[in-house]
């Protein structure tokens, strides 16, 4: 049922898409450009889309700055995000499996309780959590952050993975059980490998949640060498004058790995997301 599409219409469609694509890309492009500029060109009242005097100095400064603070922030963020991913994936996979494969009293209530937590504002949880973390002596410790992030990422991960498990037929696991495999065995040896794309999406989501989080990191960590990247980068943003050339270079270093991975894996990520998300 192809409609006849006029030339004018095709032109309009492409124009709209190009316009929005430019808007989507431009802020990051501008950061990349700024990150290679000399300070004198950064703070200039001419628009210079490309750096007129290309320099690596801003990157050099970050990577060698006193006490290697920037690298320390990168390490803190990587460590916290990886730990969150491991704990989060384990918890999400086991509970999503239970919710997908078994019928038991309390199933609907637990599914609902995962959903309703989306509504809890950080504003109400952060004060008690701060108090708990403080009383356990976990301020300025990775553990407090990892726990908070795991709890943040978990509900969405469980819903997504449950949807994914639902799309995998149960027959294989039943057969394995008949052959005498334990439930843990069928889960670990059969269901988990089959759900690998779903697991990957969950892992990515947990990692990104931890990598991007700002509020808990701002509250729980108050030693400069323990900052995560968002909080650390913010220290370059001073009240009156910001070193935008350093901020830009830092931002590019942080974004590039995530962006490359995202572009390469996007097809896969989106199909995993919609498979889980729409089944609900």
């Amino acid at each position: 049922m192809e409609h006849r599409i006029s030339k004018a219409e095709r032109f309009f469609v492409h124009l709209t898409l190009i316009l929005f694509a430019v808007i989507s890309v431009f802020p990051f492009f501008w950061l990349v450009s700024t990150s290679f500029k000399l300070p004198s060109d950064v703070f200039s009242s001419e628009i210079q889309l490309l750096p007129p005097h290309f320099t690596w100095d801003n990157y050099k400064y970050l990577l060698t700055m006193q006490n290697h603070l920037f690298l320390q922030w990168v390490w803190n963020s990587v460590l916290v995000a990886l730990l969150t991913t491991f704990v989060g994936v384990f918890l999400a996979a086991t509970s999503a499996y239970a919710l997908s494969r078994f019928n038991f009293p309390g199933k609907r209530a637990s599914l609902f309780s995962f959903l309703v937590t989306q509504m809890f504002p950080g504003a109400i949880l952060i004060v008690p959590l701060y108090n708990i973390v403080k009383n356990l002596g976990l301020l300025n410790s990775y553990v407090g952050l990892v726990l908070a992030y795991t709890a943040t990422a978990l509900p969405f991960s469980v819903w997504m993975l449950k949807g994914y498990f639902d799309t995998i037929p149960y027959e294989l696991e039943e057969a394995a059980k008949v052959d005498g495999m334990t439930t843990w065995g069928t889960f670990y040896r059969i269901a988990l490998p089959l759900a690998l794309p779903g697991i990957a999406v969950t892992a990515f989501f947990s990692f990104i949640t931890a990598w991007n989080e700002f509020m808990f990191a701002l509250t729980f960590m108050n030693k400069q060498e323990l900052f995560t990247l968002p909080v650390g980068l913010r220290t370059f943003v001073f009240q009156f004058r910001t070193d935008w050339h350093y901020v830009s270079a830092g931002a590019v270093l942080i974004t590039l790995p995530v962006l490359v991975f995202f572009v390469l894996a996007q097809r896969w990520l989106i199909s995993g997301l919609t498979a889980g998300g729409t089944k609900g």
Partner: protein
Amino acid sequence: MKYIQAIKQNKVAYLFLLPAMLVMLCLVFIPLVQGIYYSLTNIDQYNMGNRFVKASYRFIGLQNYISIFSGEGFAEFSKVFRQTLIWTFVNVFFHFVIGLGLALLLNRHVRGRAIYRTLLLIPWAVPSFVSAFAWRWMFNGQYGFINLMLAKLGLQPIPWLSDPFWAMTAVIITNIWLGFPFMMVTMLGGLQSISKELYEAAYVDGANRIQQFFRITLPQLRPTIFVATLLGVIWTFNMFAVIYLITEGGPYNSTQILVTYAYNKAFSSWQLGEATTYGVIILSMLLAFSFFYTRLLKMEKEQ
């Protein structure tokens, strides 16, 4: 006895569920109850106690609620609440319109569709704090790209981050940019699940494309729209990082929304009791909204 038997019969399922439930219980549900309790106390940084000193805050009933809903407290609350409503409504509206519009375009046979889609997803892929910094830089009054551009066009520069109205505009623009790709992806997923036969039948019946959009696309897309906008409202209402990193709520609290305001109450002025009261108010609003939104959808369906 019945319960014990049920537990025994489903032992495996419960064991699989237990670790996640324990984490949610300790880190979400118990803190929630504790937060609600704090809202009924005079807790602050001095009486909250620590590992060595016993806590000494006390129960004060509804006093925190009364001070928020009367006098000066109410003036402040209604200002921030109004800003939160504008923030949420404008953001979700544009997320939806732009997201759906682009999804409709991408759902057609456009040449270069994959490239367009990848580029349009960039705002989603870039870490949100990086985007916040990028926009803050572009909104810079003196050297920011936007004002330089305006100057080039012979227009006056705009005091983006120092004027209340423009500061709100700036954070909203940033957040619209940040959020439309999620809506686009969700809508695209919804559009692709609509059966092509419906359109064929409509075409044979002579329905034009506007009729097809309102009679087929929108009704078929309704469940997707419902879930996506509900999540959109909740997430936008609770958005913290964008505002905090671009304007820190200023100038003169003009970009403060309820969550950033509550956060400042807690960790700048250390009025923890009042901060959690704000938390309870935010939560009640979101619960009420979700309840009525769900009802609305059900009622429409029955008609």
